[in-house]
């Protein structure tokens, strides 16, 4: 059974007078993993940032879990509890310990009792093999550890959808694997995910579908295997060629 979680319809976005996204249409079903690919500057970050209201958009509609999104601040506030996001730069809060980073939103936003939030945080840290870092500050961690904790921080809000924006792009090569493995586990556990990535191996292996963004427009929306075996456009072919000879 496919049940749509997110429907994007005729989405349009401009920075000032410059259009960045034009007539974007796609659907993400529950449990699906969608990889959003495209060249630098094609609008990938802008697109996923419109999905949780970090960027306003000018045209089109979004529907989340059957509800049309009325893009007001109050709507976004409510929706961000259900949409987790992880960034390239980790963005752990350096003024808080790892545990406090993990408990902040569950306590302040979801109003969980502290003890419950702490138990959940420690349990997840243990599952991720990071239990020993609970009381450290982010500055004492490696990039890979920080990024796994940033993922844990988003997951503790029990989101229905996870957005990832090039979460391995700042990592040393030896750290990339651990983060991708974690994301693969999440995908296997049926988390619905939209993943912006330059890791073609990961996209091919883990994603159900590829969205290819070309200069602000989606020019391919198809099963991952099909995209990689037969890229549908010249531009997609060139993109894949440029990614493989890196």
């Amino acid at each position: 059974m496919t049940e749509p979680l997110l429907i994007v319809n005729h989405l349009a976005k401009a920075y000032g007078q410059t259009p960045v996204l034009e007539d974007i249409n796609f659907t993400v079903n529950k449990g699906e993993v969608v990889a959003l690919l495209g060249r630098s500057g094609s609008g990938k970050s802008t697109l996923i940032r419109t999905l949780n209201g970090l960027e306003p958009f000018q045209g089109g509609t979004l529907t989340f879990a059957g509800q049309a999104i009325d893009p007001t601040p109050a709507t976004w506030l409510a929706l961000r509890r259900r949409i987790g996001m992880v960034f390239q730069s980790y963005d752990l809060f350096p003024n808080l310990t790892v545990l406090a980073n993990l408990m902040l939103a569950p306590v302040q936003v979801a109003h969980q009792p502290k003890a419950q939030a702490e138990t959940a945080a420690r349990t997840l840290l243990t599952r991720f093999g990071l239990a020993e870092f609970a009381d450290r500050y982010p500055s004492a961690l490696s990039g890979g550890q920080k990024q796994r904790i940033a993922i844990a921080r988003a997951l503790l809000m029990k989101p229905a959808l996870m957005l990832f924006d090039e979460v391995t792009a700042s990592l040393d090569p030896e750290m990339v694997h651990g983060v991708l493995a974690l994301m693969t586990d999440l995908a296997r556990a049926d988390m619905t995910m939209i993943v912006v990535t330059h890791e073609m191996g990961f996209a091919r292996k883990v994603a159900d579908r590829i969205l290819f963004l070309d200069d602000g427009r989606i020019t391919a929306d198809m099963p991952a295997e099909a995209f990689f075996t037969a890229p549908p456009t010249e531009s997609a072919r060139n993109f894949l060629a440029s990614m493989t000879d890196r």
Partner: protein
Amino acid sequence: MSQSGLELLFQGQNLPRLLAGFGVTLRVAAVVLALGLSLGALLGALRTLPNRGLQVVLRGYLEIFRIVPTVVLLFVAYYLLPQLGGLNLSGEAVAVVTFTLWTAAEMSDIVRGALVAVPRHQVEAGAALGLTRAQQLRFILFPQAVPLALPGTINLATRVIKTTSLLLMISVMDLVNVGQTLVEANSHLHPTFAFWLYGALFIGYYLLCAPLSWWAKHIARQRKAVTND
């Protein structure tokens, strides 16, 4: 009867008068710091808002108080305020108002700088977690801005303390003014009196400012040790 200049310092009302002057300096500095730093923090926060008109006004205020020497501001306030409003302010009150406005102007710049130095991503990450704007400020922006603003604020505090010596110019009996008066009254009794007295002033200001200065250095060192995030 021959005394040393040092003994003269402890004679009669000399020391109590000096301590009273020290008290005035301390009181003015404390009131100015309490009012000026709070007002400045508020103005600094306002200066990060996008409102154009507000920014022009606040920047103009900062520029005026930064460009015009504080002593000129003080004279202007001392001679003009009573004529303008017809209010009868004491010299000390005029000085408190002037120094507070000057301190707030300087502080607003320190606070604005600290707030904009916190990476925008930090606040965005908070927003993405569902924190309200107020929660983003309380848990993320302010806690990260305070350590950034602290060294500049401490430095400003020492400047404020030293600037209170301008009270002399409008005849308020602060530490320097008392000292000056005592020198004039006693120097003929012993030639080294002025030396000991100015030494006492030095110690007074040193006691007020040195701990602040050490604290600022300590923070800077600490920050160097932890900022690799």
